[in-house]
């Protein structure tokens, strides 16, 4: 498998490319005799960087298994428990999963192309619709990349408002995950409870930003509006209620024998495999790697907050459940500190190049009106350059690679979706497991298809 890179000069034998590789059915799982060994190994969950035997004994891959002994079934894209329009093709032997291939792209929205047509002011509207479970994170990473290119520093209060919104959003995203994970494992009550608590966070978002999600609240240069009066009380109520109810989840799920039977030891992952597959976020931490960008490469106000990075031990579905539940509590701990430490000041940078004039001045001054108009039609110019910004979203490292050509629109805006990369772990998690556990494994990866397909 490993090529010899030492010989120079190399003569690369290039195949004559045809459209064959994109012909009908090319993305789907094909029969064993039509699949080459590297691809077959990938589909059965071998991590090819690691030595043989460490992750999968090559003897276990049965290359010559006749296809009439197994069955290839299709799951999705319209399926109740695939968390969106994910499509999986599974090769089954009875109820045991032998090979898996995720097929994605059913929600491809062309956001990276649209992003090249929108100015930096409008760009946050576009990216917020990628990860619809944690829209503030995509907005923030876009804004951080833009601000890095501009070379501006935003005021303290804007930084802390962003941090508050990110943590509240992590709370709502994990609560929604608790709900859907419960649903996938047959616990309908958990579904109801998760949504019940999430609605509290949603109403606070609606009060602050005007929308429940897809907020377009975090923008280059700060945030769109200041927090509403009495926000401390609203947030304190959310913290108290969710924290109290997170112990009810413990009663409902954590100690429950059926839940433990279905999650413990299912979908195991080791740290080496996770690193090789570029897995980040709760999946990586569940294997015991304490990698959380909030701690290891602090951004915004995370350097001044006191919190723990939660890690798992076995990397199985139960670890990932327990880790997310503990992260809910850590988020609450952080939000309480943010309430105490929230500085006063401006919620956006007072740089006439980036910031539109306040509403009051538009009525009085013609120059302010023109300035306002120009910022929202032409946008502001961003110096030529390229930058990669990354933050820790509830699903892992959310990155934004932005190339500017000096105009008011990004030349290239690429979002590194954590679930897009994390989905590659599915063949590994599902191998050898039962079909009914496959649903639990998909859920524990927590893919958001809007971010996978973009």
């Amino acid at each position, binding site marked *: 498998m490993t090529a010899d890179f030492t010989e120079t000069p190399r003569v690369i034998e290039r195949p004559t490319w045809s459209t064959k590789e994109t012909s009908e059915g090319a993305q789907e799982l094909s029969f064993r005799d039509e699949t080459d060994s590297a691809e077959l190994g990938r589909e059965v969950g071998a991590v090819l960087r690691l030595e043989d035997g460490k992750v999968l004994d090559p003897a276990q891959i049965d290359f010559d298994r006749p296809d009439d002994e197994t069955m290839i079934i299709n799951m999705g894209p*319209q399926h109740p428990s695939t968390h969106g*329009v994910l499509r999986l093709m599974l090769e089954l032997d009875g109820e045991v999963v032998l090979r898996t291939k995720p097929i994605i*792209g059913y*929600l*491809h*929205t062309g956001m990276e192309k649209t992003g090249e047509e929108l100015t930096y002011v409008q760009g946050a509207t576009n990216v917020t*619709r990628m990860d*619809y479970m944690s829209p503030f994170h995509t907005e923030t990473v876009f804004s951080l990349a833009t601000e890095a290119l501009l070379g501006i520093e935003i005021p303290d209060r804007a930084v802390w408002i962003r941090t508050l919104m990110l943590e509240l959003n992590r709370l709502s995203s994990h609560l929604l995950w608790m709900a859907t994970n419960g649903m996938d494992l047959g616990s309908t009550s958990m579904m109801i409870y998760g949504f019940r608590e999430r609605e509290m966070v949603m109403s606070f978002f609606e009060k602050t930003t005007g929308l429940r999600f897809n907020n377009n609240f975090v923008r280059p240069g700060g945030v769109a509006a200041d927090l509403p009066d009495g926000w401390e009380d609203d947030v304190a109520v959310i913290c108290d209620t969710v924290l109290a109810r997170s112990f009810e989840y413990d009663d409902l799920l954590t100690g429950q024998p059926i839940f433990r039977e279905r999650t413990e030891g299912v979908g195991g992952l080791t740290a080496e495999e996770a690193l090789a597959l570029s897995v980040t976020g709760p999946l990586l931490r569940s294997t015991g790697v304490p990698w959380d960008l909030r701690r290891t490469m602090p951004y915004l106000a995370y350097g001044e907050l006191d919190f723990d990075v939660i890690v798992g031990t076995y990397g199985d579905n139960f670890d990932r459940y327990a880790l997310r539940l503990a992260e809910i509590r850590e988020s609450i701990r952080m939000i309480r500190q943010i309430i105490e430490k929230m500085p006063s000041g401006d919620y956006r940078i007072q740089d006439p190049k980036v910031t539109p004039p306040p509403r009051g001045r538009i009525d009085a001054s013609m120059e302010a009106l023109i300035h306002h108009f120009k910022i929202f039609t032409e946008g502001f110019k961003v110096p030529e350059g390229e930058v990669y910004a990354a933050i820790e979203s509830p699903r892992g490292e959310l990155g934004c690679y932005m190339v500017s050509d000096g105009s008011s629109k990004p030349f290239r805006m690429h979002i590194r979706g954590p679930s897009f990369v994390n989905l590659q772990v599915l063949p590994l998690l599902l191998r050898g497991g039962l079909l009914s556990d496959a649903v639990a494994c998909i859920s524990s990866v927590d893919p958001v298809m809007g971010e996978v397909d973009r």
Partner: protein
Amino acid sequence: MGLEDLPHNFLTGRVEDLVKWARRSSVWPVTFGLACCAIEMMAAGAADYDLSRFGMEVFRNSPRQADLMIVAGRVSQKMAPVLRQVYDQMMEPKWVISMGVCASSGGMFNNYAIVQGVDQIIPVDVYVPGCPPSPETLMHAILTLHEQIRTGEITKRRAEGRPLEIDAAASPWVPGKPQAVQIGTPR
């Protein structure tokens, strides 16, 4: 009419009204969540908004058992054939709610990847505005649909939901090139 002599323990009415009442009170949606709107659709079915007040909490996973398709989210070119197939698998009578601006008109994503309005593929009864529509908006749409069922006809089959006949010779489909498309339910 002679009804005065009858005992007062029954009502009279038309069969049509009875059928409409029954249909209206138990519209079962198929789970067709695509994007952001799907989360709001789930929220509408969950604790705070509780769709079961309208007899609609039974989200069927099989299109054969469903009456209503709530297209919740943007429909990509790759998803469009799947959407049409699921719609074709549903039994008559069936209704469609196009939830959110992306499903209704493509919304802000006017580009190569998104179908500019789900009504190019299937006929739509109610369009829901918003990005995403809040659960209240979805409920308003559902009540509007109930009203349509109550006042509509029961025997008339709906117009065949074929996509519009686009003259391929006049406007050949070139990916990435603008193409004239009519927005609206096929008539």
